[in-house]
């Protein structure tokens, strides 16, 4: 199924406008930063005010160096998500400072234990292939927080982990070391971890985040080059305006990565968004977001990069390589375990709804119609038997059921309660193979940092989910 948000001509118009912006307005970065120094060394001109004007020819040549296919590996060599345009892989949402405690229902600060449990739950949910760091663990000491988050996630899922709260080069260096340990042990064959870095809309580079991303690129670990402009706040107040800002920022940043590390794996990560008109906060419920995500997918495809977006159904119809959906509430600030279980069911349905339905003799079922004739039913036909397992049985959304069943279910709580029970069951019972012992030891050394390990952090790691 294909839904065209943009015509071919419109795609070109947006791209041309983005090139014009990068050349005329340019990107800004602190002129005295290490990043500015590195770009100057690479032959780029950063003005004394910190402006970096990027000509169209430079952008096009740099983009041509980026690989079309990016491989996001699991930490044990299985489950590689190959971003080659043929399939959409789903990631969880991230990264919440708050968590709804699945036992008490209390809304509290997120912890390493929440990383452990959400990673384990994601591992158990088959339609998620990538674990986006779902929370920021407030109980892990800085500056080792992100290293401990990664180690905790890697212990609890074999799936690829994408870090989204790394924004300092030293944090990146620690995670690069851990990834190296996994690779050197032979456990991970492809990059087991990647990171996301956002351009600061409008048109500013965060030197810390960029340096962190460059450390990943230098190590061959994928970078999600991200832009999430908010229409009316950090981008023009229209859907195409938000799209334009995101496209300009992503290709600008990608070109810089390719200049310093030609061929480094970069994912075009476009999250053009809209403001809540009253508050300026991102509004996930603006329906134009779906158009914008679908259009961003087309823009990424037009520059031959693997694409990562959000925006649910509409963008799925455009076949992005990766789609972010699920598990967080309140504009991605609060983790809810039950929501992750419910969203997993929605993900399954979304994937199915966008799947092609081949039309042939078998699927038309003309023979079955002949057999049944007028009246009667199809329930006891072989044709039905062959296809009945393709049907979706809703577990957590409201199924139609007899009154008595509905009353019994109501007594057991809402569908949300059932999802919460399911989350706790999976966290308690789902087994995750341990990290290769040698790699784990090396990773622990990195995560412990120069200071001694904190006993209370380790105590929280009690089974089943390991922090």
């Amino acid at each position, binding site marked *: 199924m294909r839904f065209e948000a943009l015509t071919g001509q419109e795609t070109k118009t947006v791209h041309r406008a983005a090139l014009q912006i990068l050349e005329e307005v340019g990107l800004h970065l602190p002129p005295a930063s290490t990043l500015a120094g590195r770009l100057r060394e690479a032959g780029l001109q950063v003005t004394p005010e910190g402006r970096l004007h990027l000509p169209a020819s430079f952008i096009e040549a740099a983009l041509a160096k980026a690989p079309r296919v990016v491989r996001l590996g699991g930490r044990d060599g299985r489950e590689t998500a190959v971003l080659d345009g043929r399939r959409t892989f789903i990631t969880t949402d991230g990264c919440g400072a708050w968590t709804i405690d699945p036992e008490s229902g209390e809304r509290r600060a997120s912890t390493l234990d929440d990383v452990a449990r959400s990673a384990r739950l994601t591992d158990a949910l088959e339609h998620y292939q990538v674990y986006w760091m779902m929370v920021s663990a407030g109980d892990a000491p800085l500056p080792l927080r992100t290293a401990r988050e990664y180690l905790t996630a890697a212990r609890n899922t074999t799936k690829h982990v994408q870090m989204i709260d790394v*924004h*300092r080069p030293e944090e990146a260096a620690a995670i690069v070391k851990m990834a190296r340990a996994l690779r050197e042990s032979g456990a991970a064959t492809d990059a087991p971890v990647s990171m996301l870095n956002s351009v600061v809309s409008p048109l500013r580079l965060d030197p810390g985040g960029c340096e962190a991303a460059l450390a990943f690129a230098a190590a061959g670990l994928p970078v999600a080059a991200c832009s999430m402009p908010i229409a009316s706040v950090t981008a023009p107040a229209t859907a195409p305006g938000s799209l334009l800002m995101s496209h300009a920022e992503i290709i600008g940043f990608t070109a810089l990565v390719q200049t310093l590390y030609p061929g480094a794996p970069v994912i075009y990560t476009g999250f053009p968004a809209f403001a809540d*008109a009253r*508050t*300026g906060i991102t509004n996930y419920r603006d329906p134009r977001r779906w158009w914008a995500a679908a259009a961003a997918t087309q823009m990424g495809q037009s520059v031959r990069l693997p694409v990562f977006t959000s925006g649910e159904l509409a963008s799925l119809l455009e076949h992005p390589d990766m789609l972010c959906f699920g598990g967080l509430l309140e504009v991605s600030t609060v983790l809810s375990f039950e929501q992750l279980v419910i969203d997993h069911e929605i993900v399954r349905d979304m994937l199915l709804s966008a799947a092609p339905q081949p039309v042939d003799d078998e699927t038309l079922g003309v023979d079955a119609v002949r057999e049944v004739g007028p009246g009667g039913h199809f329930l006891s036909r072989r044709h039905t038997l062959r296809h009945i397992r393709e049907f979706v049985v809703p577990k957590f959304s409201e199924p139609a059921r007899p009154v008595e069943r509905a009353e019994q279910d109501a007594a057991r709580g809402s569908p949300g309660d059932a999802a919460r029970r399911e989350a706790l069951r999976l966290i308690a019972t789902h087994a995750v193979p341990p990290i290769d012992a040698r790699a784990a030891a090396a990773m622990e050394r990195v995560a412990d940092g120069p200071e001694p390990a904190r006993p209370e952090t380790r105590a929280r790691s009690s089974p089943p989910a390991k922090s």
Partner: protein
Amino acid sequence: MDGAALYGAIRAAVVEGDAERAGALAGEALRAGLDPLEILDRGFTSSLRHVGSCWEKGELYLPEMMLAAEAVKAGLAVLKPRLSAAGASKAGGAAPLVCVMGTVAGDIHDIGKNIVGTLLEAIGVRVVDLGTDVEASRFVGAVREHGANLVGMSALLTSTMPAMRQVVEALEAAGLRRGVRIAVGGAPVTKAFAQEIGADGTAADGMGALRLFQSLAAKEVPGAV
């Protein structure tokens, strides 16, 4: 235009966010011999209050409020020389209000800070915006350099919230803490956190921030240092 008509026109200009017209009307009101303080209060401040309350009721959207604030700022700029001449400070305090504002070290989020900064300017506070990723020493330096009596910090990352405490401590260490009122904000910042780090208050949104700063300013700020 007589006084009432002028105040009506100022309100319309503010509500429509027409900075050019607001500035021109401020000049016209002065030329008509109206008292500068009264023009400020009846013309601009009351219009801003009206806009703020419409925003809080959900009748106005954020860009409309921001443009209204810009219009008030334009009017203030015209009135300012006459206000200073009259020795008047808008907030009624002894010293002019100067706020050093920034997003703390390691953090680049600035949308919330910019909203709060614009609204503060509209009530006559001189805002010294240090931008984003601001180290504690720069807050201290700016408070000293500009004689600030208010400090506003923003943080959006849980990992950068501790930097707010560092600013409070650095102001203490520099002997400047008693001379300033400190407000902190940003989505993850709570009242309990503000209290814990020794700040004077927090607010959840722009209008809340405006009220917070007004109440902090009214609390006998010792004045410029």
